[in-house]
């Protein structure tokens, strides 16, 4: 299973939903297509085996808009608990986990 150091491999501040927000760089859309594009179909969610681990050691903060676009997008295929089983987070603090969980529970909104 692949492990990604998000802070080093992507960016340390996860804030922009898409190219229209902020400086339009390091967006959630970019993140999704870089690491999670294979999961953008119903079939991929039938198998619950872990797919990827995101290491948050070097991530400073994650915003709700980013979490919504990058992760809650998949709520049309699966449920929050299944999502957390397939996509795992390492070295992530309770605030960031809480933000991601909240977005997963509230569903994809933009």
């Amino acid at each position, binding site marked *: 299973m692949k492990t990604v150091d998000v802070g080093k491999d992507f*960016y*340390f*501040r996860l*804030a*922009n939903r*898409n190219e*229209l*927000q*902020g*400086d339009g*760089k*390091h967006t959630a859309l970019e993140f999704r297509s870089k690491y999670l594009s294979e999961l953008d179909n119903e079939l991929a969610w039938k198998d619950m085996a872990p797919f990827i681990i995101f290491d948050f050691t070097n991530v*400073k*903060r*994650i*915003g*709700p*808009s980013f979490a919504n676009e990058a992760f809650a*997008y998949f*709520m*049309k295929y699966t449920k929050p608990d299944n999502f957390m089983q397939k996509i795992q987070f390492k070295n992530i*603090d*309770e*605030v*960031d986990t*809480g*933000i991601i969980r909240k977005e997963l529970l*509230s*569903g*994809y*909104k*933009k």
Partner: protein
Amino acid sequence: MKKKNIQYLLWVNQRQFKKRKIEIHKSKAKRRNKFIKKREPVHKEYRKSIKNERKQISIKLHSDYSYISGNKKIDIDSQFGLEDSKQFDNYLSYASSIIDFNERELTLNLNNCARVWPSAVTLMCSLKEWVEFGSKYNHIKHPLIRSTDSKDSSVNSYLTHCGFYDYVGRIANNNSGEFNDSHIVKIQRELKKDSDTMCQKEDSIIKLLENTTTFTKSQIKLFCSTVILEVFQNVIEHGITCNDQGWWVLAQYHPLHHFISINIADNGIGFKNSLLSGPQSQQLKDELGTNAEDEGYLLQYAMNENVSGAIDASIKEGYFFHKGYKKGSGRGNGLDRIRTTCKELGVPFSILSHYGYISYNNRGSVIKSGSCKNRIFAGTLYHFNFPIKEA
């Protein structure tokens, strides 16, 4: 009729019925696709047209101002700011006479002013940009804005200390030695929207909160990630994307009053214009009727219903009773995140946007909301009174 013939006729009818059903389905889909294509927010042309419309709105906002003649003097007595809830109405009345002035000269008489709070400093900074931007687009000389010194020397020294005199280019008379630099995030016009600048500002607010409050690091991080970050995204979108007017941050620790005043503002087109020029404009007009023109009503509606003025906001599709959001999408919930996190942490806050205002207490209830006859802020101001201790 023979049994065989009856069966044949039934078979033909069924076939015709099925054919007709397919035709209806196809024409419905065609109509729906045409409708979606016309209003689909991700369409490049559509995005461009919204941006252009917002640019035009931004210029039009200034068209009523000529600043040709006359002199207006506004006496600001006692206190000026949103920080003290008792002064809220006073602030609105001062703000509405300041922003909407149309004379050649404006004098702010601070002679009897006992305190200028950070929210008032932010208002005065945005006023400078408001008149300069308006004059530039109307090709007129910009008016002269003056302020007198206060009898109270601490008012003058605070205006120096917070960066206001630097910002407006006024020579400071007093030193600001009595104030502590570690208690403030000074005001300046921010023109950059890159993540490094944002991160720097977020870090300085976090540092200020960590050094002065009893809130845990996790609570402060939650406030920064869900409230400050979300507000920054809003002010950048409205402040810089439209016409490059910038945005401001001013945070100040008030040890005697037990809170930190955080003010983040832009000089953008405001909530109403943003919502009514965005993808959800038609559905808002349909739902709210004439109330859609009332900035205060729209502001309260936006806080409760989570509508969005974002260029790529979701829109309802379909017809009549079947109208709804596309599967997997919903309406913006940025304001809801701000409201719920502030309620969770017990942070009172207010939002002022052009003519409208809304104010929440530390329990998340609306204490004031409405519209003024005159403009009360040049763009949108987000004001938070972060308490030193948890309630």
